[in-house]
């Protein structure tokens, strides 16, 4: 695993999130995601049977894995881990649209953009490198989304992960995701 200058990740607070989709829509505007495709999505998971039910709601996207199968399986080097932010990115010019990354992603976070390359959440690379929040974090009415540098122990995300109980998605795949659900 490469060491990167920063290690940006995302938490979603399942207690706060109401699953409204404002994040998905804000992402669409910010990143010009074509209608019908999506870099983010909302999950609602209900367990139990009437009337003893439990529900978990969260908004999800690319997990920006440290051990990213999409990067390992990309034959052209188009998918890579960005040295500066530690996020997973796609170099459009190198992408041939072969879909090896899509097949290997346990989170189903990628899609083929109509212009032919594979696209997904960039963690608003253009914004976070300018010191701004991601579009989804900024818009979220419930402040459920927090993005930050996991290398910085003083960042809000690091503090939340020390203070709160959290879960990660499909860790058995060995992906070392940088996406956390506060529960």
């Amino acid at each position, binding site marked *: 695993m490469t060491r990167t200058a920063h290690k940006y990740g995302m938490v979603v607070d399942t207690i706060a999130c109401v699953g409204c989709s404002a994040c998905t829509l804000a992402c669409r*505007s910010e990143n010009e995601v074509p209608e019908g495709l999506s870099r983010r999505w909302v999950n*609602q998971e209900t367990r139990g049977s009437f009337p003893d*039910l439990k529900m978990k*709601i969260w908004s999800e996207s690319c997990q920006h894995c440290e051990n990213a199968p999409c990067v390992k399986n990309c034959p052209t080097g188009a998918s890579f881990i960005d040295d500066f932010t530690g996020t997973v990115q796609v170099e459009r010019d190198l992408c041939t649209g072969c879909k090896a990354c899509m097949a290997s992603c346990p989170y189903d976070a990628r899609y083929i953009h109509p212009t032919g390359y594979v696209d997904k959440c960039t963690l608003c690379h253009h914004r976070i490198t300018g010191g701004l929040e991601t579009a989804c974090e900024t818009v979220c009415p419930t402040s459920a989304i927090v993005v930050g540098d996991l290398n910085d122990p003083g960042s809000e995300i690091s503090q939340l992960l020390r203070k709160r109980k959290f879960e990660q998605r499909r860790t058995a795949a060995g992906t070392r995701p940088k996406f956390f659900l506060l529960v």
Partner: protein
Amino acid sequence: MGSSLPWENLETPLESQEAGLGQGSIIPTVCEMCFWKCGVHARVHDGKVVALTGNPDHPLSRGRLCPRGVGGIGSLYDPDRLSEPLIRVGERGSQEFRVATWEEALDRTAEGLRKVADQYGPESLALFYHGAGGSFFKTLFKGMGTANIAAPSYAQCRGPRDVGFELTFGEGAGSPEIADVPNARVMALIGTHLGENMHNTSVQDFSAALGKGMRLITVDPRYSVAAGKSKYWLPIKPGTDIALLLGWANVIIREGWYDAAYIEKNAVGFDKFRAEVAKYTPEAVYIETGIKPEQLIATARELAQAAPHSLVHPGRRVTWYGDDTQRCRAVALVNGLLGNWGQPGGFYMSSSIPLKQAENQPPVPEHQAASDRPAGSYPYAGSVLANGLREATLTGDPNELKAWMVYGTNLPMVLPDPRKTLAAIQKLDFMVAIDILPMEITGWADVVLPECTYLERHDDLIAPWYREPYVALRQPVVEPMGNSKPGWWMAKELGKRLGLEQHFPWETANDMIGDRLNASGFSAAQQANLYKKGVILKQADPMYLPAGAPLDLATPSGKIEFWSQQLADTGFDPVPVYRRPEQPGPGTFRLLTGRSPVHTFGRTANNSRLLDQYPENEVWLNRATAVDMGLRSGDRVMMKNQDGAETGPVKVKATERIRGDCVYMVHGFGHKDPRMRRAHNNGGDDNALTTRYKVDPIMGATGYSVNFVSLEKVEV
């Protein structure tokens, strides 16, 4: 019109490029994707809106925005928008129109209204409206001499809540609601589905309070998103909420979990109230509601132990069963027992910035008597009843209505029993509809005037009562599409034609706003800042009463009215009384409706960005019941009510998340006007199934959730 947009004159529009971001200027304005009216920043590049985000300076958005607000671009660039004035050519309702010039359409409208006013008197005119632009047409109709001006947001939505609170505390629950959710330690929701009902600030506060450990009690036949975040979910039998609320009162009083000294000082009629609720024991309530006695007691204890920093939320759309004012009064009374009026975590005292009318604008005459109810009926109606105006049109009681203007409200999907709405329209001499999209109502009009969206127009200044008082500005961020025009311009043009020009004494919308700001005492610097920031803020008045201070309420007694003399004097129950509702027969279900966070009523059903997130409504059906009926999720059914009214096909959602005696669907789908290509025949129209409705005898609101439906599988 067509003059340069005001923000182009600003010296330094906020440039997002400075931060190395997407291109374009950022212009502050106010959202109208729903009526909450959050402040938005529109990012405009090359004359196109490319992003909408929350205005950080605006108290209702605090930099954040709900999905509808973000997706407003989909409404702005909807290819199905009305773009030209239309005049009917075929029979009314045949949906045949020709394109007309504005000159001709406005002349025709003025003539249609004037003829009716001359022949039958101004009391034969009616205006139905929803949304900010309605203010200009209200001025027009008041100027013509009528009081028949109704917003369905009253009698079809929140009216009973406000009357229930007025009868108890002397004040309505406000919009935005005066519930101090951020500071609540315990909150109960009665059918209110915050999080699905997506009013930005109210959901911000809700989630923040949950984050601080607020314990939530959700009373709902359906396991809503809010129920999923609750310590207690009480899956109540629909129609029995009054029993539950009086049961809470019973337990709190019986156990002595209330502040007797507070009640002694601040309440009237408490002894009579105590006697009335004595019969609502947890065991008796269980039989009616299905809520187990231990759950009722535990939740009453939670509320009482956290008092006064606990509340029962007043809710918003409360028009369910026809006894809604009494249910809302029961909500108010439990809050009274909690002693939370004027207390943190209860109900706060709102403040506002008073705005004055422009000095060159004469006062608009106010007319007292509307034609919305026969003499003596619905004595506590606090606004004109939209359903009442329809009724008068049909019956001629108290007088015939002969011309309607319908602004921004799609009456066939808003008022219950759409058959009656269409029959009333056919009795009119003239009807004009003003809308953005070819909603069903426009198909029945004689003249259709296409309005531009909120992103293309000014409206009047916005200054609500809230925890932080403010004035906000709606200003256009792009030029109007096609030949659509803003409401203020239409009203002014009609005013000219009707001899009412003095009520619209400005040439441009900027003059209109500037004159009003000047009259209200705002300095040039404050006004410039309003254009730049979108909002003027003011320090709030005190939000809470000092602990122990006596209440000074606007009720007749000045106190909390646990027993209402005025209700007794007018022939109503002075304390709410539970009456067992009719139950659905075998194979039928009570139809309940609600909201998706991504849609506003039926107004967004053609918005491609929002449909992308919530493409069609589904009928929620208890899973075990579905199995018995041989239905599975994804099956399609026709829904038919007790009167044979039908809608569908609608997709089934078989789920554990609902009781077996009711079904649920999100309102606003199943549009029938083919000119809205995405909305047409997409999903089911719950309003088509409301041929039965119950009118609240106290204030005239229409209860919708009294229809029983059956489901029949459709092979597709």
